[in-house]
């Protein structure tokens, strides 16, 4: 891995200074980087953008509740071998033919350094991270069936995301760098929107951001709208060609901002919001 390479964000992804620093620290010291944050703050996208920015291939491993650590290393396809043996296939003599390589193996043996994304590690069983300690630390593992040791040719840049559904074990955490993606402030949000909608009219954007942060500030919402919902909403506003004035009038006459369905995804939230808007209108 060339140590001179540095991640600097990209034209389609706004990375804050501290995030860039965390990525570069992980890159230089060749240790995994654990990313947490509210849903919709671009955790998964980070890995894609890092890979693109550094010109490295990206390998992805999406974790489900049934995923086992072993599946990331390799699997012994006993069923095929069993079938082949009953059919008298020649391949059956070599166990190597039935070892299916997992994502980690591919990442370790790739010709060039790669970015390895382990997505939503908290979805898996509680023991899952513990089973990967040595593999991520030493970047090597042993294949019992063929008695061979797989060692990383180039240590991959491992990016792990978590939604905080389960706590991760301390031993695992100690081996990672950690970064929590905070919800962007207005300035950063402006940059993010600029990146996605370069032609958006400034007054519409300013109004939309105001409405967005107002909605986020409503206390008691079951799910606060996130960055990705804001982007969807803007896309809709553009598609419907809604003028900035329509948003401005939102805090005076009409009850809820137009196309609010893109921001509030929960019936109770919409009701709550309407009620609050109604109350504030009466107070005026």
């Amino acid at each position, binding site marked *: 891995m060339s*140590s001179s390479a540095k991640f600097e964000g990209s034209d389609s992804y706004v990375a804050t200074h*501290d995030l860039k620093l965390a990525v570069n*620290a992980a890159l*230089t010291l060749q240790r995994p980087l654990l990313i947490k944050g509210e849903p919709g703050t671009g955790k998964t996208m980070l890995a894609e953008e890092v890979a693109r920015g550094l010109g490295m291939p990206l390998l992805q491993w999406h974790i489900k509740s049934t995923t086992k650590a072993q599946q990331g290393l390799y699997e012994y396809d006993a069923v095929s071998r*069993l079938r082949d043996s*009953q059919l008298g296939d020649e391949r059956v003599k070599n166990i190597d033919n039935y070892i299916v390589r997992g994502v980690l193996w591919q990442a370790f043996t790739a010709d060039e350094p790669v970015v390895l994304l382990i997505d939503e590690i908290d979805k898996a069983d509680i023991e899952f991270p513990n089973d990967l300690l040595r593999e991520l630390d030493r970047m090597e593992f042993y294949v019992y069936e063929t008695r061979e040791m797989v060692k990383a040719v180039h240590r991959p840049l491992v990016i792990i995301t978590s939604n905080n*559904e389960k*706590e991760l074990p301390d031993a695992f955490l*100690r081996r990672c760098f950690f970064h929590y993606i905070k919800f962007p402030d207005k300035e950063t949000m402006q940059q993010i929107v600029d990146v996605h909608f370069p032609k958006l009219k400034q007054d519409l954007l300013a109004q939309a951001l105001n409405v967005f942060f107002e909605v986020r500030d409503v206390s008691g919402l079951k799910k606060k709208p996130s960055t990705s919902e804001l982007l969807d909403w803007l896309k809709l506003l553009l598609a419907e060609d809604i003028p900035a004035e329509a948003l401005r009038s939102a805090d005076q006459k009409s009850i809820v901002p137009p196309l609010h369905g893109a921001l509030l995804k929960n019936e109770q939230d919409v009701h709550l919001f309407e009620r609050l808007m109604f109350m504030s209108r009466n107070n005026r």
Partner: protein
Amino acid sequence: MLIDFFFTLKEAKLPVSIKEFLVLLEAMQKNVISNSLDEFYFLSRTTLVKDEAHYDKFDQAFGLYFHGIATLFEKIDEIPLDWLMKRMQRELTPEQQAALEKFGYDKLMDRLKELLKEQKERHEGGNKWIGTGGTSPFGNGGQNPEGIRIGGEGGNRTAVKVWEQRAFRDYDSERELGTRNIKVALRRLRRFAREGAQDELALDDTIRATANNAGWLDLRMQAERKNKVKILMLMDVGGTMDDHIARAEELFSAAKSEFKNMEFFYFHNCVYETLWKNNRRRHAERFSTWDVIRKYPPDTKLIFVGDATMSPYEVLQPGGSVEYNNEEAGAVWLQRFTSTFPKFIWLNPEPEGLWQYRQSIAIIRQLMSNRMFPVTIEGLERGMTMLSK
């Protein structure tokens, strides 16, 4: 120097380990960051802190440690930079140093504000005004032992602000919780086990059996893996619990979706001989408490939810209930529950700090062998660990 920093973090009760500290040093050695305090803050945070709940503690400890090295505040914008150019370094004897005025931190800040109001021009070499090379506590390159550095190297406005803002205060684990957080805490209780009809192909077993069978297929089945934990939840409703409805609701809905084998009953203030399931029909539809105690197996985990705030008579005295004449005291019923179900806890939505001032809380806590926990993330976690032991 950094060793002190490490111990400052340790003292702030941050779970930092030596390994992580060594990684931080390694990163410094490899020049991951340029020489700025701002970057050092981010690097040390990403290396040493592995939970956003600890970010606030870290900010405080970091601020404490680097307090003397670079402290700035918003007013700084008003100081023109050219005042602070290094012009003179006056040599001071130790006696002179000691003779310098020593202010406390707050006094320094107040005084700085005062001075900012008074001072309108560049100043050098004096002992009161803000400037360079003097012995006043303010400015750059000066020699007051408790001085505040303004501008110059070593300080970076945005950096200090990052931890001074303490933006992560809300993530501290003392915070109250949403349904989602409660679910996470409750998941600690999950116990997976295979029970019931065998309707899944047991692949590993089949392969082993087939191998034993000299290669002829021998199918093996197994039951599906299910969460086996059984929960009995008893919730206090009405009266003083009205203040906690939202939180109790959250807790309840989270628990309901996490556990299939969950039974719940309501009581008012303390458990007596009847419980009910539907609060609206509480007088029509009652369940005998004896039946409830007998119905569930002893490995059921019992969770009381209530503020335990009532008159002590309601717990200790037969006939003490506010609603009707109970034959046996609430304490007797509580003891029956706790002896039948050895895994029990009491969750109390009142803040933990208040408990010592309420007599009834103390009594119930004693009856619960001290297994009373507040409804915060941290409290729930302690509670769930207690239940799963």
